[in-house]
């Protein structure tokens, strides 16, 4: 800053710097070279795109396109214009991630919502059918069953995972020895992917527990199989929720607890009257974490039961997808039934439900922050 003050010219600092940096001294040949790079890059891009557009099958067009993009970016970077240099850097910096994001998320999202109103079969669209897919899916008992099962699963999970996570957190904030070991082992299941631990638990339910307890496996009947999925989910997730509750509990100011102790509060009163209200924001975070993640549950469901299970009479029909949750139902509609448009309509409904949950989450956590 002091350096600037010494200069007498009334030039704003930024403009001054840019003048110093890129000002007229640049040798002309380099400028021309920069233009050539940019032009060459654009030329490569255009040629490869034209080749693509004309339906050429030449193998060089792919690499050429990438080379074209890279050379164009280099050309933009080297473009000898001090005035726009910063803007160009911004463009270059935003480009890679935004490009991947548009191709991977935005375009498929728009297409997906569009496809749900057509008879898309995964390859082409023949007719526009309006809300036909939505009407059809609401009439299918197995889809309604999936919604109900998912709702039940979510409710059980949110309550039980939070309860166990909180109890584990209380246990892990006591003065027992080797606390680090216990915390680490409770968290351990969270590291492993749902597919792998789904099969491990399938083995335990089908081979180990049946032998040890001399009963039929839990995975046989739909209602006990759902219970089994809840057990596995708690086993996997409670350790993670525990970590967040530990952070919340250790953040409760020590003087509040001391003050309560001086006023003669016992440990139960300290817990319910001091600690729980103080960690209300943490409870909100954990509730919504478990809510969204169990709503999207797929891997364990696939590995443990693959959605099978019989339901004798639901809406007047016999169902074989007793443990199939929404995410798996959407997947199976497309992959097993080969019914892409219907699957897409279900997915759009799934998206809307999740969006509603998320909006409620943002609202409630904002309110909590205000009231604190």
């Amino acid at each position, binding site marked *: 800053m002091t350096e600037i003050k010494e200069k007498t010219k009334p030039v704003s600092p930024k403009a001054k710097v840019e003048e110093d940096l890129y000002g007229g001294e640049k040798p002309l040949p380099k400028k021309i070279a920069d233009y050539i790079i940019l032009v060459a890059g654009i030329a490569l891009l255009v040629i490869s795109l034209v080749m693509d557009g004309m339906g050429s099958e030449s193998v060089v067009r792919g690499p050429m396109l990438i080379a074209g993009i890279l050379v164009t970016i280099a050309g933009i970077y080297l473009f000898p214009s001090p005035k726009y240099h910063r803007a160009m850097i911004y463009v270059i*910096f935003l480009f890679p991630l935004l490009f991947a994001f548009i191709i991977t998320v935005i375009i498929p999202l728009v297409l997906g919502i569009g496809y749900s109103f057509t008879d898309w079969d995964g390859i082409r669209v023949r007719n526009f059918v309006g809300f036909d897919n939505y009407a059809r899916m609401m009439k299918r008992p197995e889809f309604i069953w999936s919604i109900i099962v998912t709702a039940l699963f979510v409710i059980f999970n949110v309550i039980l995972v939070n309860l166990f996570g909180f109890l584990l957190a209380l246990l892990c904030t006591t003065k027992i020895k080797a606390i680090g070991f216990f915390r680490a082992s409770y968290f351990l299941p969270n590291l492993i992917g749902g597919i792998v631990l789904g099969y491990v638990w399938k083995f335990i339910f089908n081979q180990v527990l049946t032998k040890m307890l001399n009963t039929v496996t839990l995975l046989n009947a739909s209602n006990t199989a759902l219970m089994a999925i809840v057990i596995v989910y708690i086993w996997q997730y409670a350790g993670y929720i525990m970590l967040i509750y530990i952070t919340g509990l250790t953040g409760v100011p020590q003087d509040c607890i001391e003050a309560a102790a001086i006023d003669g509060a016992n440990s139960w009163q300290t817990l319910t009257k001091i600690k729980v209200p103080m960690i209300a924001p943490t409870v909100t975070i954990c509730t919504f974490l478990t809510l969204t993640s169990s709503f999207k549950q797929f891997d364990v469901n696939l590995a443990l039961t693959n959605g099978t299970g019989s339901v004798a009479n639901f809406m007047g029909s016999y169902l074989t997808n007793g443990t199939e949750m929404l995410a798996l139902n959407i997947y199976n509609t497309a992959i097993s039934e080969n019914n892409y448009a219907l699957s897409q309509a279900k997915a759009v409904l799934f998206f809307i439900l999740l969006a509603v949950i998320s909006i409620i989450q943002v609202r409630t956590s904002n309110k909590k922050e205000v009231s604190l």
Partner: protein
Amino acid sequence: MNRTPKKSILAVETIIAIVIAIYVLFPFYMVVVNSSKTTTGIINDPVGIVGGSFKQFAQNISDVINNTHFLFWRAFASSLIITVVSVLLLNLFGAMAAWVISRNQSKKWAAVIYFAYIASMIIPFQVVMLPLIATYRDVGKFVGLQLIQSIPGMIFAYLGFGGSMTVFILTGFIKGVPYDLEESASIDGCSPEGTFFRIIFPLLTPVISTVTILNGMWIWNDYLLPSMMLGLAGKDKTIPVAVQSFVGSYVTQWNLVMTAALLAIIPMIIVFLFCQKQIVQGMIDGAVKG
């Protein structure tokens, strides 16, 4: 917490903690024990250590590693390449994008891009899954690059899906980095890109490690995206896809299934043993900030 606990209470708490630990670790014990048995050994006694032998363990391992559905080393290499390259690129490109967004907060275009990233965090994979495959197939055909059933295609997809969370966390952090730092660098004659790479990027180390852990764990364990993109019967598989494809064909041979599970679990456990503190902190930060 500052109370001086009675010995009896402490003993009860310790016992409860041990019982829960046994319950939580029991499935891991099952995996280790049963991967050293024969199929009949498991049927006779699935819990004890007796039926297993080291020779059988070596036999199972070599059976699974060389199985045509599993091909452990190949799957491991694919998973490793996809995870490491995706995480590195997400860190670099994510930091670049987050810096641009946080330094142009007042501008409309930056706000729109930021909002698009935030809003996309609620999009479930299921809603884009089918059109994604169709888009990748068409784009790949059009430009002459294989995007589905290819590892570069997978990495590109993770750049798209991981971008929102990465940009969200990094933007939140960069907003807290004082702008004076950049101004003084710029006064000293540093170009904008130089300012970013020399001043800002090194400051991001703590938050980069959070993002690395969150993205790394998610990508390593992800099943649905690679199973759709690579296919259960494709030539390249990630480890979760290989496990699914293997178990699908050997579901009655539980000793081999357990061996496959063991091989799939070990890399993560090793990483956890070395970076336990960072992983735990990263998971907490991700939850609280996300």
